[in-house]
């Protein structure tokens, strides 16, 4: 089972995402933004970072990268797709997920270990969690405030499409404490915090993030 991780100019967390995918037991493949080729992967991760320097809006230019046309087609066909941090911003800009990520309410770049609750464990990326399981993984971003209109928010809530919510104080002003959402089909997930930084206790606060990568392995085997 092959998981592709896309590197854009300015991507930071592709190495950790590749490592997380391999530790979880998948074959991790590096994909390049400028090549419209998914190299036969079964799932794709859009990692964190500052693609294209966050110019214009975070994720706004990456959305039009050559590789993204293939990613969008494959994801619309059901391929599991995870966007972490900047990757989540790209998914929103590509309209694969609703809403947008805006500047943190207090303007600070946050970097800390964050408690989350996994509310939807039925997506391609979350079946290895139990419903309402609390996890601790790093949160590090400057533009992580999830915003959408009231109708979209009601729809996300009503359809159980909030994948993860912040526990405790709202770190960035996200509506309804939203840390991650999914599409109707459950194959596309966007998440602001970083599961790929929490797969080994040597370098992370926990191993709580590994479940995202083991879940997708199961989803692909199915």
């Amino acid at each position, binding site marked *: 089972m092959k998981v592709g991780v896309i590197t854009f100019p300015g991507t930071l967390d592709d190495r950790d995402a590749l490592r997380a995918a391999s530790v979880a037991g998948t074959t991790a493949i590096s994909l390049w933004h400028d090549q419209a080729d998914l190299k036969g992967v079964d799932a794709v991760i859009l990692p964190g970072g500052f693609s294209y320097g966050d110019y214009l809006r975070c994720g706004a230019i990456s959305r039009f990268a050559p590789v993204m046309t293939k990613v969008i087609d494959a994801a619309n066909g059901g391929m599991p797709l995870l966007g972490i941090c900047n990757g989540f911003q790209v998914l929103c800009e590509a309209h694969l997920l*609703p809403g947008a990520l805006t500047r*943190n*309410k207090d303007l600070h770049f946050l970097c800390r270990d964050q408690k989350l609750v996994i509310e939807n464990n039925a997506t391609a990326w979350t079946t290895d969690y139990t419903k309402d399981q609390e996890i601790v993984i790093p949160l590090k971003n400057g533009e992580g405030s999830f*915003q959408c209109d009231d109708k979209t928010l009601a729809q996300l809530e009503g359809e159980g499409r909030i994948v993860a919510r912040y526990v405790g104080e709202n770190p960035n002003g996200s509506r309804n404490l939203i840390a991650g959402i999914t599409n109707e089909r459950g194959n596309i997930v966007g998440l602001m915090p970083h599961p790929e930084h929490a797969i080994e206790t040597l370098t992370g606060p926990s191993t709580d993030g590994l479940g995202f990568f083991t879940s997708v392995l199961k989803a692909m085997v199915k």
Partner: protein
Amino acid sequence: MAIIVVEVMLKPEILDPQGVAVGAALPRLGFTFAKSVRQGKRFEIEIEGTPTAAQMADIEKAAATLLANPVIETYVVTVQA
């Protein structure tokens, strides 16, 4: 030559923390007139001659897909001679 100007602003209901921070800095300089401040972006697109209807339609498309994100932003297109 003409310059097509696209001005992009966050929708009123979207919190603009940068504008709020600028608004909070003004009184520190002794400027107490501002009730609120909102920060936006301005794009100047230079073209040869005067824009045709087709070019204006393209600019509109570019504004809606790339220059602004209609989920959180609004935009206004104007032409400077």
